[in-house]
């Protein structure tokens, strides 16, 4: 029995790019237990704090990217390892919306056969697949004429709604549950 990485949490952090608004609110947070029926490794509050703390790194990297001209692909790769189990990976769309995937490195217990092909740890860029799928889902959400991005990341003022689209939530759920290291498609 070996533990392989699995997704513990997927988060979408909104941003309004047209104004200097400080809003960087969570638009969506999905939390996944390592096994069906298990409790997630952290509480929802802890996960939202984890997502919030990735903003520090997004900001620091964006600043560095401005000077180096990097980061054009939007993939931020590993943001940081929160501890020995959880690590946050990040992606930024060109409208400033950020996707964060918190990976539990010992998330899923697999049998020996599956474990033989699995090694612990992740390759660089392995999370790109997840982010691409998240972006596709998000783009689909934006195409919905009833979805008003300004309502979710208001250009001024405070707060903002969370994403309530059932389809988007289901997409996230499917993503988080099916992803495993080494997958080629989702």
């Amino acid at each position, binding site marked *: 029995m070996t533990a392989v990485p699995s997704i513990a949490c997927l988060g979408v952090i909104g941003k309004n790019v047209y104004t200097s608004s*400080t*809003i*960087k*609110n*969570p638009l969506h947070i999905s939390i996944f237990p390592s096994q069906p029926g298990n409790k997630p490794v952290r509480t*929802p*509050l802890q996960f*939202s*704090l984890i997502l*919030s*703390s990735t*903003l*520090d*790194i997004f900001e*620091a990297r964006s*600043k*560095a990217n401005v000077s180096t001209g990097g980061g054009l692909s939007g993939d931020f790769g*590993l*943001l*940081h*390892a*929160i*501890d*020995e189990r959880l*690590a946050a990976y990040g992606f930024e769309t060109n409208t400033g919306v950020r996707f964060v995937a918190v*990976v539990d*490195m010992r998330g899923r217990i697999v049998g020996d056969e599956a474990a033989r092909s699995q*090694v*612990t*740890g*992740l*390759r*660089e860029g392995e999370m790109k697949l997840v982010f691409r799928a998240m972006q596709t889902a998000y783009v689909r959400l934006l195409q919905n004429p009833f979805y008003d991005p300004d309502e979710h990341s208001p*250009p*001024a*003022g*405070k*707060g*903002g709604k969370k994403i309530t689209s059932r389809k988007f939530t289901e997409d996230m759920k499917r993503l988080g549950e099916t992803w495993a*290291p080494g997958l080629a498609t989702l």
Partner: protein
Amino acid sequence: MDGYASAYVTHNVPYLVVSGLGGAERNHADIKVAGARITSDMPPVDSEDAEVLIRNFEDSDASAISWNSRTSGGRKKFRVKIVGREYVLPRRSARPPDTPRLPDPHGPNQVNRPILHSTLSPLTPGSSLFPDGIFDPKWIEKHQDFVPSAYISFYKFTSDPKLATLQDNQLKTDINNIKRILGQSGYKTRLIVALVSESSILKSPGAEDRLINIRKATGLDSKTSLFFLPPQSSAVEIQAFVDAIISTIYPLCIEYYRDLSKHSRRKRNRGIIPPPTSPPTSGTLQTLSSQGWNVRYDLKLGVLAEFRQEMDAAVRSYESGYELLLGPDVLEAIASWNPRWNEARLLSDVFAIRIIRCLLWNGSSTAAVRRWFSHRERIRDFVDRRGKGSSTYGWEAWEARWATVMAEIVKKVAIPDFTLGHTQFYLHPEKTLPIGERLEPLEYLHHPGYWFYLATEHLVRRRTRALAIPEEDRSVPGPSSASQTANNAYSYDTYLCPPPHEEYPLPGNKGVDHSLLIFQTLEKAIAEFDKRKQSRLVHELSIQLANESMKREDWSTALHILRPLWQKMSFRTEGWWDAVEEVAWALRKAAAQVGDGGAVISVDWELLHRSFTPRPEWHYDLTKSLEGIEYTLAKPVVVLHDQEIHSFLSATFAFEKAEGKVGELCHYQLAVRSKALPMSAPVTISGIRVEFEGSMKPLELQHKKIIDENAGDRNDFDLSRVSLSDAFSEKRDSQSGTRLSQSGRSSFIGEGNLAIWPGQTKVFWFSSLLREAGDATALSATFSLNSELFDLDYVQRFETTTHPDVWWSGDFAKKRLLRPRPSSITILPKPPKVELRLVELQDQYYANENITLHLEVVNGEDADSSISLDVRLLGDVAPPISLTMAAARDYGDKDSSPLGFAVGKIASAESSIVEIHIPPIDLPSTYDLMMKASYHLVSDMETPIYHTASVQLSIINPFEANYDFAPRVHPDQWPSYFNHEEIFNVGATSGNVKAHGLAQKWCLTSRYFSFAADDLIIEDLDIEVLNTNGAITCTTKRISDIPISGIRVSPKSLEEAEFDVFTQKLSLDDRTTATLDVSLAIKWRREKGDSALNTTILAVPRLLVSSSEPRVLASVSYSATVPSMVHFDVILENPSNHFLTFGLNMEPSEKFAFSGSKQATLQLVPLSRRTIRFRLIPFVRGDWIGPIRCLIRDKYFQKVLKIAPTEGMKVDKEGILVWVPPEEE
């Protein structure tokens, strides 16, 4: 790393002892392990140079440098110790066991000489390792702190020739003595001698020889062991001297440690365990196995390699030792209850720490992290199999320790990516790792903050485990309950952590304060994260920090953390409500304990917002906030601002219209919206105050209890009209309710029901008269909540929003206000109804004209107005103007100042006319006429009203002219020398001096052009002689006739006027050149009947008359007798004093026939003129004939004189043309 002996974990650098500088108080030699004692009788060097030397050596001390190759490459290479003249080395081998100082009762064996080993060897009885220990950190200490690799001895080098021999001999003895002591001690410490010269070496010429002498007598190598500091060296030179010593002896010292390594390796390779000094005597004590010995040697080899800074070699030795230690023969062979088991485990940690350090030293960050992980897994496996398992508090304690160790190593290594700029959060794996390898995220080496954070997680788990210790294990073991202690020792892992009765003490006993441990580690983590500006993570950890403080019931610390966090956290501005909520509840809890009522109320206010999860058991009533809280402060007064809090109340302010005028009624609305939790109690505001910027008075809305409770005030929407009254009237009777603003301005006061239910929108509709002109903007609304327990002010600023504000006109009717800022209004001044009008304004005004403008002031107001005028003419060199009343000249004249000219009272719908006089302006220009009427109505004397008007006046010159100045033949005879004429009246006044000189006649032709916009009548034209130069008299006469009605000049037409100018020199003898300055004066008037006559004076260029040069004039006259004949006269004038001879040559022409001399020579006497007449018969009529080619040449100067034409002639380029009148019928 505080659990490990510092010798185990610190990095090793070569050890250097510097003696003989300064006093003996620097001698810190440890006497306990006393061995050989180095002493010297020579006095220490105590000059100023010695101080500088000491400072330089202290500066080169490497004991505190970072653990990386960059800093160790600098000048800090040694751990330097400065001692006096005395230094004690530790014993090399233990004393024999039978010495009287260490009596051994168990069979001293005098027959066989005991084999002596090092005091730190497991073979030496009395050593802490005897008989089966592996390693004692004192061994590292011995090499790092006691046995130097080099011993520098400083001596004074005297310059006194008398004392030189004596002192040199003393020096030699002393040096040889130290050499001998060192040799006997068994250590291979190098002796270095440094001589500090006393004063100038120039005084002792034999110094060189003396040095050689000393060297020879002591056998010191002059290059590496004997150093000489010349006298009077500067600080820089001394530093260079110290650097030279260090860099010279450093390789030798490395060699010293290499020798030690060789020694250890030889012993390891021998593979035999040497017999102990005396065999273990009691019980079943076993001796250290050969594998154990190898571990010991490997550790020594590794440490010595670190001394040499050879990290690769060190890693190899450590890895080998580590494998052996954890192999089957060493740690596996020790029983877990044996204290040696923990010692061996500690040793494995030390191996791992040193390996990680060496890997980081070499830049292998990922390898280091992997080593960190693998050590943990090995030990976990070990503890699970052989120890007490990895689910004990002891294991978590070690895990926490292990993470802290990593954090501290990473900090101490000072990786540049982490220390410079603090922008990196983790390192990328080293290049040696294959690309695309799977890596654990933490295998990217993260900065120490993460490791500290990891430690806190384990500390938290340790606490959880500790809290699960059953109560029977927690009691303090008494002396009698030995069995229980033993039992505990079997069931609890106490490796580097306290036994269970201290880990989780029974109440009343002292023990581990877990929260404090977590708190301290968190603080370290926060410091690291803060350095890298991970503010959100810092906030997150601060919450934990506060929670730990609260667990310890250290409420004030918690409040100290939470209060600023609650104010500044990014969660609120960024909309992470669950985090805000967490902080808020924590702050409330802490504040309630401390008794900070202000914080409690602030938090309660915020927690009413709908964004937060409701707690079912909570009352959500601000009035109950302070229940059960003991005050430490007076009545709390809280001021909250909308930027710093997520308030459930929001307010918008809107004016109905963007513009209003003074005196008009203006409507505006204040909409208060509550987003409170539905379960919360209504909030009753005592008063709302709206502040304005600009010309509006502040507005105060006070709560008025409405008795009729059911009147729909619970509806989601409530619109009420509020009538306003001025605060001036109420100021006296209601002291408490009305607060006048500081500036003493009055305010509007209104009353309304300010009990706001959750989810309700209350709109207050106000209207008031606008009083002052200007812009007014509603700035902020202040909600005041005054109760017996507390005062709270919530200030909300009205910001510009992108959402359009709403104007509520009925219960459900609303319209959107599509203005960028509905909370502001532009108040225009009351529009003036007095008009200023210029009547009978001409199209164009001219220079030199008296301008009178008629200004009509019309009072369009409903009431009589008292008006005063302010008229200004603006422009370059604007002339002063004056005003008069047209109707009433008699008294208007006396107050004719154009500024503040009082027109007086004008009845409604009446007007009066004011004349504006502008004096003649000389130059054409453009002026602005500004007219301003300031007035007030008789009915409202307070409000000044202004009306301005402006007209542009452009003044042009009506005429411009050009001029032609041509000579004419003067009809008078020239004076003759032969006519005598008495000059009378010589003494007469100079005013009418009779001119006697030559007279000349000229013709000035002026062509003037009218630039006027309309017809002008010219009444007269005249030439005014302004000035004459060169003593002449001058008279002029107009030739052209002007009719009595004047010449009518239409715009843009050209007119011509001719004037005769007669000049005469005053004296006949005067022949200087004379000039005339004249001007043309045109007297004109407008065509209108009564217009005044104006004079425009046009300047004429200076005219040159009367030269002494001869000239030739031509004139034409027509024969009265022969109709077709023309007389053509050539008049030669000789005004000079010389006889002049001219040649005349008249050429024939095809246009005419002529009679007269065709060629002649003319002699002119001084002051004479001569007329040559030709008679011409032209062949044509009514035409110009010519050119008449008549050439006059000055014979003497051979100069052709030009013939100047007079009237009836003109000149073209070939000659003179003459007009032939047409044949008369």
